[in-house]
């Protein structure tokens, strides 16, 4: 029941990110992302205090909240989608706790969301949520970082479902002009300890197709966040966004 992300071809996996309701046409953007052959889409629930996000995603969260975004409104929007590209929700833990874990997971399931990424929930704190997601068939994606030692990385990978979210660097979300050494190294280490069927995706700091090509020598794909969010914030047209995502696939 907990399916991992799988490759449709020989190309690396590409998972674009968008903050829910950050622009009025956010659902159209998601359609376009699916059309652009995204392998999955990460949708953020905006939180007032996003500890691991840089200025770009912080701003998108602020916009979304000003647009009236709530957990409910975003999940309702996602429920209305008709695409076969899996959706992963990214959210800070408080938004889950506030609704109640079981109710939250129910809502997620009824919105046809595939999985959850909760960046402020390290291995030691996942149990309560994990019990609920497992029994509901929701994939809980865990994160590893350059600072994570091998043994711990293996334990995290073992508990991760959907894919393994590998932070490319020690830092917050945001664009970087070049890929740090730590990203390659961490990707390599993550790939080594991850179970064979669990794709390893690198996120945080992957902003350009060249960077994606370089890193996917060591892993299975990338999550592209701030680079896309900046374009959406700057008013890029929907098909420009689609083209940008496609450029990662070529």
């Amino acid at each position, binding site marked *: 029941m907990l399916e991992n992300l799988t490759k449709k071809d020989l190309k690396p996996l590409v998972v674009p990110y968008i903050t829910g309701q950050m622009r009025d046409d956010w659902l159209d953007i998601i359609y376009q992302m699916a059309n652009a052959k995204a392998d999955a889409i990460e949708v953020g629930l905006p*939180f*007032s*205090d*996003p*500890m*691991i*996000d*840089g*200025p770009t995603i*912080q701003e998108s969260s602020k916009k979304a*909240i000003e647009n009236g975004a*709530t*957990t*409910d409104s975003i999940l309702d929007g996602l429920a209305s989608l008709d695409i076969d590209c899996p959706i992963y929700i990214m959210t*800070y*833990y*408080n*938004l*889950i*706790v*506030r*609704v109640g874990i079981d109710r939250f997971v129910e809502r997620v399931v009824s919105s046809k969301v595939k999985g959850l990424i909760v*960046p*402020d*929930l*390290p*291995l*030691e*704190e996942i149990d309560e949520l994990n019990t609920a997601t497992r029994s509901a068939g929701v994939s809980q994606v*865990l*994160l*590893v*970082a*350059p*600072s*994570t*030692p091998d043994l*711990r990385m293996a334990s*995290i990978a073992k508990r991760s479902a959907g894919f393994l979210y590998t*932070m490319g660097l*020690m*830092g*917050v979300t945001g664009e970087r002009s070049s890929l740090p050494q730590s990203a390659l190294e961490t990707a390599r280490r993550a790939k080594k300890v991850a179970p064979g069927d669990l794709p390893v995706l690198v996120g945080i700091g992957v902003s350009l197709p060249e960077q994606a090509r370089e890193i996917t020598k060591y892993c299975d794909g990338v999550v592209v966040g701030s680079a896309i969010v900046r374009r959406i914030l700057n008013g890029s047209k929907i098909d420009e966004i689609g083209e940008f995502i496609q450029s990662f696939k070529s």
Partner: protein
Amino acid sequence: MDEPDSTGRFGTFGGRFVPEPLMQALMDLEVNFRKFWSDPEFKGEYYDILKNFGGRPTPVTFLKNMSNDLGVNLYLKREDLAHTGSHKINNVIGQALLAKRMGKSNLIAETGAGQHGVATATAAALLGLKATVYMGAVDVKRQGLNVFRMELLGAKVVPVESGSKTLKDAVNEAMRAWVKEVDDTHYCLGSVMGPHPYPWIVREFQRILGSEARSQIYEILGGKYPNYVVACVGGGSNAAGTFSGFVDTDAELVGVEASGGAALTYGTVGVVHGMKSYILQDEVGQILEASSISAGLDYPGVGPEHSFLKENKRVRYETATDSEVLSAFKILSSSEGIIPALESAHGLAWIIKASRTGEISQGSNVLLTLSGRGDKDVAEVKEMVDRGTVI
């Protein structure tokens, strides 16, 4: 007050709700703290600095004039006399020493009122570390004196423009900064909050406040403990330190929050800044902005151990409004010659109210921790008085 359990919890509160890149640092910190806190040499150095540099022990002062007026015997534990002007120095000396033993060369810190920032900058100067202090842009403005002080002490002050531009956003920004520099940087957290092991570490470093107060007041009262022990609660560090000295007596323990930042009184359980605790949040889970005249209590969360002490009813938590606080601020200044920090004036405000309503019965012995001095606040209060905002 005991050690948290192996998951860093006091009852159901606490924990370590942080991104993975910080986990290693938190685990290292816990291991090192456990090691050094039981090392007599480390403890000796810590006590020595607090004594010879920090001005400890601070005295307990009997307030004759106010006691007469209120009909209760009021005593102050004088953290305003500690070096840098508040209890914050107790914690930072401990953490800075720890950081040094751990081989870190930089400190980062968040600050609200600026007292923790000043204390961190001070400890950094003393121990040869670099300090960067994150401070909400709103607080930078209202606590200008402390900004100058930090800069003179050689620290870099970074105004935080995100969110409500106050303490909670300074914490977020400090955490973000820490993620990037976790290798050579210690995050010197300013209160009993944040992810495990901070609530525990900070309480232990503030324990000195409560231990001193305990033996001082016991002697003053001729072999008794006070009926009430009161402290203000922002993150909760001066209160935690204070209560640690009295939790096993039959003193009634009272924590006083700012009514505009009263997580324990008006909040609900949630997770923010790495901890599970009471917080001020809306129905969907967005953290609310606190709003208080005292920058140091302008915080929508509270340390997890206080949530635990509230639930198990060992401590009772009350609130004081801005105007009650200003009135207490002025009363203590003009009738005892002690200008309190606005934060500390919250505790006093509650005592005044409760004495007048008879809730604290006449003749009771009441100990209040005066967590800091009000020099940082006088310009702001003066302005409010001049503008006619307050009487």
